[in-house]
């Protein structure tokens, strides 16, 4: 009986406690795993975030490039139009149209009345 008790005690001591110990180790490993997954997710998210920012920045870069071209073209167009306007408003051209096309003349002094302010 004593031997039985002793062997049972030994069994409990070696196996049951050992099993308990194993169970405790498994708990810790799951926590670490969860932590690692979270960390990995975070890293991945940061990476994707960086990637997204980088791609977005690239897209914006292309957009800026396109807009820069458009801006240059519009500036040139604006300048061309200003020059064209200046040509159309030149005194010689206006006089030619006024006299030849519209039949206008410079009024004589007697045809001008000065209105006092």
């Amino acid at each position, binding site marked *: 009986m004593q031997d039985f008790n002793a062997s049972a005690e030994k069994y409990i001591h070696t196996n049951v406690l050992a099993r308990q110990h194993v169970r405790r180790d498994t708990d810790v490993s799951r926590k670490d795993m969860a932590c690692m997954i979270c960390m990995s997710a975070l890293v991945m998210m940061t990476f994707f975030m960086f990637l997204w920012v980088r791609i977005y920045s690239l897209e914006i*870069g*292309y957009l800026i490039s396109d807009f*820069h071209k458009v801006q240059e073209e519009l500036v040139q167009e604006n*300048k061309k139009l200003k020059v064209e306007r200046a040509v159309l*408003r030149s*005194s010689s051209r206006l006089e030619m149209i006024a006299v030849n096309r519209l039949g*206008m*003349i410079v009024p004589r*002094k007697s045809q001008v009345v000065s209105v006092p302010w």
Partner: protein
Amino acid sequence: MVKMKSRNELAKNIRFIAMGFMVLFAIAALRAYFLQILKSGELTELIQSQCMTSIELMPYRGTVYDRNGAELAASLDVESLYARPGVIRDPKAAAKLLAPILELPIHAVYRDLMSSKPFVWLQRKVTPTQADSIRALKIEGVGFIKESQRFYPQKELAAQVIGFVGIDSQGLEGIERQYDSIIKGKSRKLFADRDAKGRNVFVEGLQPSDQSRQGNDLMLTIDKNIQYIAEKELQAAVSQSQAKGGTAIVMDPMTGEILASAVCPLFNPNQRNEAGPEAWRNRAVTDIYEPGSTFKAVLVASALEEGIVKPTDMFFCENGSYHVATHIIHDHAAYGWLDVANIIKHSSNIGASKIGKQFGKEQLYQYIRRFGFTAETGIGLPSEQSGFMPALKNCSEHTQSAISFGQSITVTPLQMVTAYAAIANGGMLMQPHIVKRIVDSTGAVIRQNAPVMRRQVISVKTADIVRDMLKQVVAPGGTGTKAAVDGYVVAGKTGTSQKIEQGGYSHSKVMASFIGFVPADNPRLTIIVLIDEPQRMKFGGDIAAPAFSRMSDAMLNYLHVPPEPTPAHDPGQIKEIRTEPIKLAKLDEA
């Protein structure tokens, strides 16, 4: 004991590892210093050449405006055609295709395409139509580069004042040359990343705009409409008299602003090579001439100011012929006794000579210089001449006499109009200027040229007396009656001076001129009209005075200067004035 030993070893190891890290860190720091500081420029260039591209942004030459903001000169981008001869597969075929579009001989284009150089210009600044046609050919090794081209939208208007630029947009004449450094701008590089397809990507956005790329704009004091009137009437006078050329300047006597500066013959700066350098010259400042009788007003103003003569003083004009030393001075008519006003009115050389004699030589020279002669006006136009007067020690009795009626002294038209402006405005010699302001690309004013009085040459009282005398010149019986303007009182003086030819005075070549201001008592315009070598109507009173009249009339109308209150134009009686019905007629009848 064992425990202690192991602790010491652990500490030793940690120190060793720390030392190792420190050494590594030091190496890294040194390397970073080497790369970031010492080799920074070189490496930046290397990285830029590998994965960055620089876009050359051409400088924008500033615009030149008239006083009301009308463009007189502006720059536009145009394309220039280049070729890379080594890349072109069939130069002969390419030359045959390109030559007709470029309007060049085939052999000339072929020669360029066969050049040993890696890059050749085929034609700089082609037209948009030419560029489109060539682009459609899709010839490998032929391409376009954008360059700046200067355009003068008003064509001939104020061409000699504005000048023009060369093929590389450098100012060559006129304002373009004088203010080249201010308006030309600077080229700038814009850096961008380059992707695998060679496209530009502005990952870090555009750099802040560099204002220096855009040259500054110039706003001139010129009024394009007044300039047009001056040019038109000058051209008419030159044609009518079959003259070699002419000059007209319009100045605001109160401010010294040049409202117009016309030179005939005209040229179109867009096609400047069609006219020669003779036409490019701005004769208003580069040419000198003997002013003749127009100088008498300066003499009389000086004599009155100095108190040498009084307006009522009488001078005997020797019935038209007067001996001075070994020379004989003539008048165009035989005059007896004339007062100072009549000497001006009838333009008596003998009378002027006798007034001049009252001066000491030094005194006369001093007044001439005070009126701004023999020195550049400082208007800010290239190649301005200062004029010439014999050195004081070489001034004989005859020279002094000749200077009194405008011979033996040379002046520029600008100096003359400035001197008359001083008489017009009450004796203030104003600094003539043609640039009103300089504005940067943001619109901020960099420089504003305000009116500057250089000195008070004569008193207001003297100026008033001379003004009244000059009014008499245009009144009936004077030499300048054709300068009269209906509705306004004109003050001015005619001049006809012989040109110097082969060391003596020419008998056939003259300079006919009229200088005056209007309205005489409240002057808005001082105008000089100078006709060079008229073949018909050789007197200033016959050709220059009528041109002055037509210019003044149109300019005063344009400036809305109301006619002076003469009986016919009294504002108080305005309701009683009946206006004639406006009829449509040809411009010549107006």
